[in-house]
C-alpha cells in the first residue's frame, strides 16, 4: 500500500492553498488601492493600526494592500516560471534520454555549463544586460537555468523507462517515437517532476525577491522583493522594522509551504528517500 501523505505535508499543502487563494483574490480583498492612484491618499509612514494593519509606506500607500497585490505577482510569476521550466525541461530531457547519441551529449554538455554557474549568478548576468529590466526579462532569466533540473530528472527516468517491457512492446507493435514518448514515457516520469515543481514554487519567489533586493528587478510592480528592498532602506529607523519583516515572512511562508509539501510528496513517492535533505 502506498504510504499516506504525512501530517507536515498536509500543513504545507494548506499553507500553499492559503497563498494560492490570496494570490487569486488578494487584490480584491485589499482594503485600499495601490499604484499611482493611491499615492498620498493617506499620510506616509503611518504606524500599524486598525485602519492600516501594516501601516502605510513612504507614499502613503497601505502596506497590507501592497502585500496582497504582491501575492498576485508572486503567484503569477511562479506559475509561469515553474510551468514553462517543467515543460521545457521535460521535453529536452526526454529527447536526450530517448534518442541518446549526439542529442544526449549536446544536451548534457549544455546542462553541465549551466550548472557551472552558481544559482543566482546566471540570473544576475542576464538581468544585468538591460538598464531597466521588466518582469518579462526576470521571467526569462529564471527560465534560462530553471529547466536544467527537470531535464536531468526526466533524462534519468527515461534511460530506465525506455528499456521496460511495455515500451519495447509498444515499439514492436509499430508505435511511433512521438507516440511512445507522449503515451508511455512521459506519464510515467511525471511523479518526480511534480515533486520538483513543488519545491521550485518556493524557489522562484525566493530568487525573484533576491534579484529585487539586489536592485535588479523592476521596483514598480508590487512584488514582495520590491517591498523588501524598500523596507531595507527604512529598517534602521526605530519602529520601522515591520516594513521588511512583513514581506520577508510572506516569502518565508511560501518557501516553507513548498518545502513541507515537497518533502511529503517525495517521501510518498520514494520511501527510501524519507527524511533526506
Amino acid at each position, binding site marked *: 500500500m502506498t504510504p499516506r501523505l504525512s501530517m507536515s505535508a498536509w500543513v504545507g499543502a494548506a499553507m500553499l492553498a492559503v497563498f494560492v487563494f490570496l494570490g487569486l483574490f488578494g487584490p480584491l480583498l485589499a482594503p485600499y488601492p495601490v499604484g499611482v492612484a493611491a499615492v498620498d491618499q493617506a499620510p506616509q509612514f503611518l504606524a500599524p493600526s486598525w485602519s492600516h494593519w501594516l501601516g502605510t509606506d513612504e507614499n502613503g500607500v497601505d502596506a497590507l494592500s501592497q502585500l496582497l497585490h504582491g501575492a498576485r505577482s508572486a503567484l503569477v510569476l511562479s506559475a509561469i516560471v515553474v510551468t514553462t521550466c517543467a515543460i521545457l525541461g521535460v521535453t529536452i530531457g526526454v529527447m536526450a534520454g530517448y534518442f541518446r547519441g549526439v542529442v544526449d551529449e549536446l544536451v548534457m554538455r549544455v546542462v553541465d555549463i549551466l550548472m557551472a554557474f*552558481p*544559482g543566482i549568478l546566471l540570473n544576475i*548576468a542576464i538581468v544585468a544586460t538591460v538598464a531597466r529590466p521588466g518582469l518579462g526579462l526576470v521571467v526569462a532569466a529564471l527560465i534560462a537555468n530553471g529547466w536544467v533540473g527537470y531535464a536531468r530528472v526526466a533524462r534519468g527516468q527515461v534511460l530506465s523507462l525506455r528499456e521496460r517491457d511495455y515500451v519495447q512492446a509498444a515499439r514492436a507493435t509499430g508505435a511511433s517515437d512521438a507516440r511512445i514518448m507522449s503515451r508511455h514515457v512521459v506519464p510515467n516520469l511525471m511523479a518526480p517532476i511534480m515533486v520538483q515543481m513543488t519545491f521550485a514554487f518556493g524557489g522562484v519567489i525566493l530568487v525573484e*525577491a533576491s534579484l529585487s533586493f539586489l536592485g535588479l528587478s523592476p521596483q514598480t510592480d508590487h512584488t514582495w522583493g520590491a517591498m523588501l528592498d524598500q523596507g531595507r532602506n527604512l529598517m534602521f529607523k526605530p519602529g520601522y522594522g515591520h516594513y*521588511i519583516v512583513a514581506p*520577508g515572512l510572506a516569502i*518565508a511562508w511560501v518557501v516553507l509551504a513548498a518545502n513541507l509539501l515537497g518533502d511529503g510528496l517525495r517521501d510518498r513517492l520514494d520511501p527510501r528517500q524519507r527524511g*533526506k*535533505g
Partner: protein
Amino acid sequence: MPIGAFLLRRLGLGLVSILGVSVLVFLFLHLIPGDPVDHLAGGEATAEQRTKLAECMALDRPMPEQFVRFLGSIVDGTLGHQCPDPRGKPTVMARIAEVYPHTVYLALSGMAVAVVLALPLGILAAIRRGTWVDALASVTSLSGIAIPMMLLGPLLLLWFFVELGWLPGPTELGPSAMILPAIAVGTHLMAMLARMTRSSMVEVLGEDFLRTARAKGLPEGTVIFKHALRNALLPVITIAGLQFGSMLSGAIITEKAFARPGIGLLLLDSIAERNYPVVQGCVLVIAVSYVLVNILVDLAYGLADPRIRRA
C-alpha cells in the same frame, strides 16, 4: 579508474564548462540590444568621445575578433581593461583581486558556521530520534531553510547592531564584523546539512556493524563517534563542499545587505555603472571558482572513498 585519469577527466570537463561559461558571458554582454557605449559615455558625450570609447572597448571590431580578445585577456590574466582610460585604471583582474579575499573569507566563515552548527544538531536529533530534541532540531532546520537571506541579514543587523549594539554594523571589516554576515550566509546551508546529518546518521545507526560494535560491549560514545559518525559524515561533507557555490551566491546578497566589500558588491556596483568588462570578469571569476571547488571536492571524495573512483 586510477586517480590520475580521474583527475584528468574532471579537469577536462571543468575546462569545457569554463569555456562554455566564457562564451555565455561574452554573448550576454555583446548580443543584447542596447549600446554599452551609451551607458558608459552618458548622454552628453561627443561623437568623438563615443568613437574613442568604442575603439577602446574594441566594439568597432567584428564579433569573433572581440571574442578572441576576450579569451586573450583571460589567458594573459588581466581579464580586460576599463575604458575610457585603460592605462590610468587598474585592470579588471586587479580590481577583482583586491576584493576577492573578502568574499572567500565570508564564504568560508559561512561554511564554518553551517558545519559547526549543523553536525551537533543533526547528530543529537538522530540519537534522540522522536523526542523533543528531534522536534526542536527539525523546527530549527525548517526555519533555516524557509527564512530568506534578504530578511535574515537585515534582521541580524537590526537586533545585534541597532538594538543591542553588541556587534559591528555595515561596511565594517575585522573579525567581529564577520560574525553576522557569516551567520546570514551559513544559515541556509546549516539547515540543509542538519537534516542530512540526521538522516544519514539514522541510516547508519540501523546498520549491522553498529549492532556488532554494541554487542562487543563498546561504550556508547565510542559506537556513536568512532563507528557511526565516520560513516555518516562522508556524504554530508561532500554536499557541504559542493554547496560552496551557494555560499558564493549567498555572499552576493550578504555583501549587499552588510555593505561589505567583495566580489558580489563589485559585481553589483559594476552593473549599476554599466562597467561591462568588470561585470564580465566578476561573473567569470565566480563561475571558475565554483568549477574548481567542485573538482577539488570530487577529488577529495575520490581519495576518501575508493568506491567512488571505481564508479
